C-alpha cells in the first residue's frame, strides 16, 4: 500500500503529512468510503500513466507498420510520397525544419524573456509588477491559430523589408540570402514561435529570479554594487539552472507547435541553404497540412513522423523537469 509506506527512505512528505492511522485501515476497521475514495483517486493517477503509455504504444504500432512499407529510408529520404504505389517518405526535411525553426525561436526568445523576467522582478515599479506579468501571461492565452492568422496576414508582409535589408548586407553568407516572394520561411516561423514561447520562458524564469535569497542581493548592495552588478553577481548565477529548464520548456512548445506553422510556412520538401527563402517544413505542420489528402498508409506515415516528434518533445521536457526537480531538492 503506497499510502502506508512511511519507511526510512520515504520519510513523511513535506506537505499534508497525515498520520498513517488516519487512513482507517490501521485501526482494523476498514471504512468502505475511504477505500472507495482512495481507489478512485489512485485509479485516476494510474489512468494518467496508462494514457501516457497508450500514446507511446499506439503511435509505435502504427508507425512500425508504416515504416515497414516505406520504400525509402525513413530517416534520410528527402521526400514525402506516402500515398504513391511505391510509397516513399522520410523525415529528414521535417527534422531539419523543426529543429532549425525552434532554435531560431530560442535564440530570439530566451534573452528577451530573461530581460522581461528581470524587468518584472527587479526593475518595474512594485505596483506595476503584477499587472505587467499579467500582460505577458495574456500572450500565452492567445490561441495558436490566431497567431497563425496574424503571422500569415500581418507579419509576413511586414517582414519582406527586413529580409531585403538582411539580404543586401548578409546575403553573401548564403544562410541569410533572400530571393523575393512572400516571407513564408523558416526564419519567419522562428520569429513567430519566439513570440509564442516568450510567456512560458518568462514565467518560469520570473519565479526563479523571485526565489533569489534577499540576503545575497542586500549583501551585494551593501558592498556598493550597482543594480546591474547585483543581478550579474547574485541573481543570474542563482537562476542559471532555472533559466535553462525554462528555455527547454519553451523549446518543447516550439517543437510541437502546429497551427501557427501550418498557416504561415509555405512548405516544400527541400532543405534550402537560406533560412529567409520560403520552403521547408516541420513535423507538426506536415501532419496538419497533408492529413486530409492522406490514405490509410499516408495516415500511418504521418503517425510515424508524429512518434518522432513525441519522442523529441518527451526528451526535451523530461530533461527540463529533471533539472527543475533536482534544483528543488538542492535549494530546499
Amino acid at each position, binding site marked *: 500500500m*503506497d*499510502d502506508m509506506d*512511511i519507511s526510512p527512505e*520515504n520519510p513523511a*512528505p513535506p*506537505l*499534508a503529512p*497525515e498520520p498513517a492511522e*488516519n487512513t482507517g485501515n490501521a485501526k482494523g476497521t476498514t*471504512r468502505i*468510503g*475511504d477505500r472507495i*475514495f*482512495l481507489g478512485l*483517486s*489512485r485509479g*485516476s*493517477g494510474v*489512468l*494518467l500513466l496508462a*494514457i*501516457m503509455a*497508450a*500514446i507511446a504504444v*499506439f503511435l509505435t*504500432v502504427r508507425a512500425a507498420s508504416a515504416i515497414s512499407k516505406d520504400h525509402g529510408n525513413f530517416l534520410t529520404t528527402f521526400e514525402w510520397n506516402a500515398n504513391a504505389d511505391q510509397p516513399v517518405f522520410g523525415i529528414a526535411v521535417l527534422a531539419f525544419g523543426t529543429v532549425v525553426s525552434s532554435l531560431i525561436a530560442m535564440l530570439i526568445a530566451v*534573452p528577451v524573456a530573461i*530581460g*522581461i523576467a528581470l*524587468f518584472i522582478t*527587479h526593475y*518595474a515599479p512594485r505596483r506595476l509588477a503584477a499587472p*505587467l506579468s499579467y500582460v*505577458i501571461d*495574456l500572450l500565452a*492565452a*492567445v*490561441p*495558436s*491559430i*490566431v497567431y497563425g*492568422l*496574424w503571422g500569415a496576414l500581418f507579419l509576413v508582409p511586414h517582414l519582406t523589408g527586413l529580409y531585403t535589408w538582411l539580404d543586401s548586407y548578409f546575403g553573401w553568407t548564403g544562410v541569410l540570402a533572400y530571393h523575393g516572394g512572400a516571407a513564408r520561411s523558416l526564419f519567419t516561423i522562428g520569429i513567430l514561435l519566439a513570440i509564442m514561447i516568450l510567456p512560458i520562458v518568462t514565467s518560469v524564469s520570473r519565479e526563479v529570479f523571485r526565489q533569489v535569497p534577499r540576503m545575497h542581493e542586500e549583501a551585494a*548592495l551593501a558592498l556598493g554594487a*550597482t543594480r*546591474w*552588478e547585483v543581478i550579474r553577481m547574485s541573481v543570474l548565477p542563482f537562476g542559471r539552472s532555472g533559466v535553462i529548464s525554462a528555455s527547454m520548456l519553451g523549446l*518543447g*512548445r516550439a517543437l510541437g*507547435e502546429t*497551427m501557427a506553422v501550418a498557416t504561415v510556412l509555405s512548405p516544400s520538401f527541400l532543405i534550402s541553404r537560406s533560412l529567409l527563402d520560403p520552403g521547408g517544413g516541420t513535423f*507538426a505542420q506536415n*501532419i*496538419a497540412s497533408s492529413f486530409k489528402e492522406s490514405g490509410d498508409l499516408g*495516415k500511418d506515415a*504521418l503517425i510515424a513522423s508524429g512518434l518522432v516528434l513525441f519522442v523529441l*518533445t518527451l526528451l526535451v*521536457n*523530461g530533461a527540463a*523537469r529533471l533539472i527543475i526537480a533536482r534544483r528543488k531538492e538542492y535549494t530546499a
Partner: protein
Amino acid sequence: MSDLTLDETVLADSAPLPPAGLRHPRLPRWAPAALAVGAIVVAAAIGLAAGLGNKVQWGLIAGVLFMAALYGVTAFVEGRRQAKDRLATSLVWACFLLAVVPLVSLIWETVDRGTKVLDGRFLSHSMAGVLTIGPGGGVYHAIIGTLEQVGLATAIAAPIGLLTAVYLVEYGRGRLAKAVTFFVDVMTGIPSIVAGLFILSFWIIMLDFGYSGFAGSMALAILMMPVVVRSTEEMLKLVPNELREASLALGVPKWRTILKVVLPTAIGGIATGVMLAVARIAGETAPIVLLVFGSQVINTDPFNGAQSSLPYYIYEQWAAGNAASYDRAWAAALVLIAFVMILNLVARGIARWKAPKSGR
C-alpha cells in the same frame, strides 16, 4: 524612470546641496529623459534627411542613439560601472517593450479587421450554402461545436484531474505518486497534434469510429488533464493542515474530510484552474483538424458526424484564401479571443475573490 530606487532616497535628501567631496558626481534625474528626447529628435532628423519611410527604422535609430549617448555621458560623469548599470536598465526596459509590441499589434489587428463583418447575423448563421469566395455566412455552427467539444472535454478531464490531484496531495507517497507527478509534468508538454494522432490511431483507426466532436474532445481532455492536476495540486497544498487535523480529530473519516473540508476550502482556486485549462483547450486546432474534420452546417450531435469549431473555422477560412473569407477568419478570431479572454478574466476574478485564507 531608470534611476535606482536606492539612489532616489539618497538623492532626495541631498539633491539641493552641492556634491560633497566624498560623493561621486551624479547625473541629474532629468538627464535620461532629456537624452531620450534628444535621441528622438536626432533620429527624426536622420530619418527625414535619409528619406526613411518606415517609422520602425526611426524608432530603432532613436533607441540606439539613446543607449549610446546615455552610456557615453554616464561613463564621463559617473564612471564606467554606473554607465553599464544604466545600459542594462535601458536594455531590460527595451526587452519588455519589445514583448508588448506583438501583443498590441495582434489585438489591434484582430479587433480592427474582425469588427468588419462581426454582427448579430454573423453569430447566428452557419456557412451552409454560402460560397467561400462570397460574403455572408457566420460562425454559429462553429460556436456550437466549440462549446460541445470543450464541454465534453471538461466533463472527462476535470474529474480525473481533480481526483489525481487529491491522490497526489492527500494520499500520495512512494513510487507511484512520484511517477504520476513526473509524468503529469511531462504530459503538459505533449504537442496537441500528438494527442490528436493518438486518438486517431486508437479511436478512429483501431476501433473504427468515425470522425466526431467526441473524438476531438477526448484529445482535448488529454491536453487538459495535466493542467487541471497541476493547478488543483497547488491549491490543495495551500489548504492549512490544521483544518484537516481538526476534522480528523473529530472522528470524521478521511474521505469526508477531503470532500467536506479540503475541497470546499480550495474550491475557488480549483475553479480558476479548470477555467484556465478550458481557455487553453478552447483555442486548440490541431486535434480538431485530425479528428472532427470540419463541417459547413450545423451539427448539434457531438457523437455523430463531423462538426466545426471556432479555431478550425478560422483555419478553414484562412485556407480559402480570399478577401471575404479573410474577413470571416478575423471576425471568428475576435470571437475566439474574446471567449478566451473572458474565461481568463473570470477565472482570475474567482481566484481573487475566493482565495484560500492560508494565513500568509
